[in-house]
């Protein structure tokens, strides 16, 4: 029989420590919507999305009430649109019109983000992928819920430097196209290396072609819970610290597993994966930086930060793996700067710089995330940042990503406001030494030697 203190512990996590299910993401395969006529394709897409996802928001709300656990976001991920639109789209404008249809469908079913405006030119770029990428700036400017992602490399294929070069200019154009709102378009655009097929977290979520027709993926979060647990073992050795994080991760993951299975049962859609990623929100107490500081760092960014983050990421994975056989996605710790008040403080005080964040991305779950940079940063410098990050991912066989926002019209020290979960961020300085000649070479960086494992 469940005991009083167990009930209190769970409810305290929810009420006081911001434990929540961050997202239920419904993955929908759009392969059966393909048509060479653009208008027919758009009709098929809209129809399939609103039919498959019609109960998603309601089921999410029901579960929320029955277990008294907040489910913050209900989202949809789609088959990469570069594949779906390949035979119908002849111009970037055609892809923009698809983007508008997807956005409308998202609004209709009541989800806050729809991901999958995606191209996967990890090795070579098809004509359709190039058209989709060129459509991104206008697509981001004209939609509200749509998220775009581009996978520019992998451990197996190397890095497509032509795609990296193109993405530098596309990020700048997207920033220009949405400059009235602090270049917010870039906050929904992510450039990945080793993108997973089953990631429920935006902006990098898409429904991989390796997946079944539709699938429910769940993302749980709970930095506040881990933070509280760490506070209780202040001064204890690393073994104790690790055990504490693992136990907490275990409990949080079990909660996600329950919600995922329940949602899957009620929607009649198979359960895919559970992603336990400690993802911060701008709320006090819901911060990754605070966890690292709780381990004994004065402020995130100081020496010791990378080690602390490596430890955290690994223990979260270990606790999660034990709790569910369906752990997947990225599972670890996210370090988006604008969404974490501890990171924002450290960036403002100058303790946290992009170079340190880059080191941190080699041991955490994703990459340079939600970082505002000066609006006059050149396209080649942005490409250079992407190339560095992709190289870390490629060599270390992990997912890395870049979501930087060159805030048009703003300089170092000023603030960019994105609102809601996306938060706010101080503009961080970028090393402006030129890498133009390097980026201009074009071609591909070959896969590393350890990728030849057959």
């Amino acid at each position: 029989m469940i005991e009083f203190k167990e009930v209190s512990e769970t409810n305290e996590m929810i009420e006081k420590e911001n434990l929540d299910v961050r997202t239920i993401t419904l993955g929908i395969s759009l392969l059966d919507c393909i048509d060479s006529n653009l208008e027919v394709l758009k009709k098929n897409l809209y129809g399939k999305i609103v039919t498959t996802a019609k109960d998603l928001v309601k089921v999410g709300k029901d579960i929320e009430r029955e277990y008294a656990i907040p489910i913050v976001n209900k989202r949809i991920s789609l088959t990469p649109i570069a594949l779906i639109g390949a035979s119908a789209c002849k111009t970037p404008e055609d892809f923009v019109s698809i983007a508008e249809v997807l956005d409308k469908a998202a609004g209709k079913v009541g989800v806050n983000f729809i991901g999958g405006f995606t191209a996967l030119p990890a090795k070579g770029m098809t004509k359709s992928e190039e058209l989709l990428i060129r459509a991104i700036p206008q697509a981001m400017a004209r939609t509200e819920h749509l998220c775009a992602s581009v996978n520019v490399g992998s451990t197996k294929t190397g890095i497509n430097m032509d795609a990296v070069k193109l993405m530098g200019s596309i990020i700048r154009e997207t920033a220009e196209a949405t400059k009235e709102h602090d270049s917010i378009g870039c906050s929904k655009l992510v450039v990945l290396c080793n993108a997973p097929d089953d990631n429920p977290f935006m902006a990098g979520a898409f429904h991989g072609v390796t997946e079944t027709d539709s699938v429910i993926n769940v993302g749980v979060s709970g930095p506040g819970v881990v933070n509280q647990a760490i506070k209780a073992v202040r001064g204890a050795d690393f073994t104790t610290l690790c055990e504490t994080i693992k136990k907490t991760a275990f409990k949080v993951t079990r909660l996600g597993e329950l919600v995922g299975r329940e949602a899957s049962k009620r929607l009649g859609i198979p359960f895919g994966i559970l992603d336990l990623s400690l993802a911060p929100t701008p709320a006090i107490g819901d911060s990754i930086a605070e966890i690292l500081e709780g381990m004994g760092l004065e402020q995130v960014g100081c020496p010791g930060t990378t080690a602390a983050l490596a430890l955290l990421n690994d223990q979260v994975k270990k606790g999660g793996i034990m709790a569910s056989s369906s752990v997947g996605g990225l599972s670890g710790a996210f370090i988006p700067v604008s969404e974490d008040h501890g990171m924002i403080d450290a960036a403002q005080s100058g303790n946290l710089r992009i170079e340190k964040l880059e080191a941190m991305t080699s041991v955490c779950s994703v990459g340079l995330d939600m970082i505002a940079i000066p609006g006059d940063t050149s396209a080649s410098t942005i490409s250079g940042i992407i190339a560095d990050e992709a190289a870390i991912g490629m060599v270390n066989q992990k997912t890395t990503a870049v979501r930087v926002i060159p805030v048009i019209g703003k300089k170092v020290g000023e603030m960019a406001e994105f609102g809601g979960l996306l938060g706010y961020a101080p503009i961080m300085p970028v090393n402006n030494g030129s890498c133009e000649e390097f980026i201009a070479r074009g071609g591909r960086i070959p896969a590393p030697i350890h990728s030849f494992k057959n």
Partner: protein
Amino acid sequence: MQKSILTVVGKDRVGIIARICSYLADNDVNILDITQTIVDGFFNMMMICDTTKTTKEFHLLSDELDALGKELGVMIKLQREDIFEKMQRI
């Protein structure tokens, strides 16, 4: 059996348990176990109940209990038991 956990937290007063129990009885909810303490004048209670027989939808029960809690000046929360079972037991 569909077990649910009801928790009540708030300032102690006469009749909290009585009112909750009669509401549950009216709705065919059977009480399996009650644990209750008072710390510094604060009333803390957990009930394990069987919600199999009730004809009311779960969220309706939960809303009505919430309203009853407001009337009594306490917080009442009804949750399905699996959430605790899953999180706290291997």
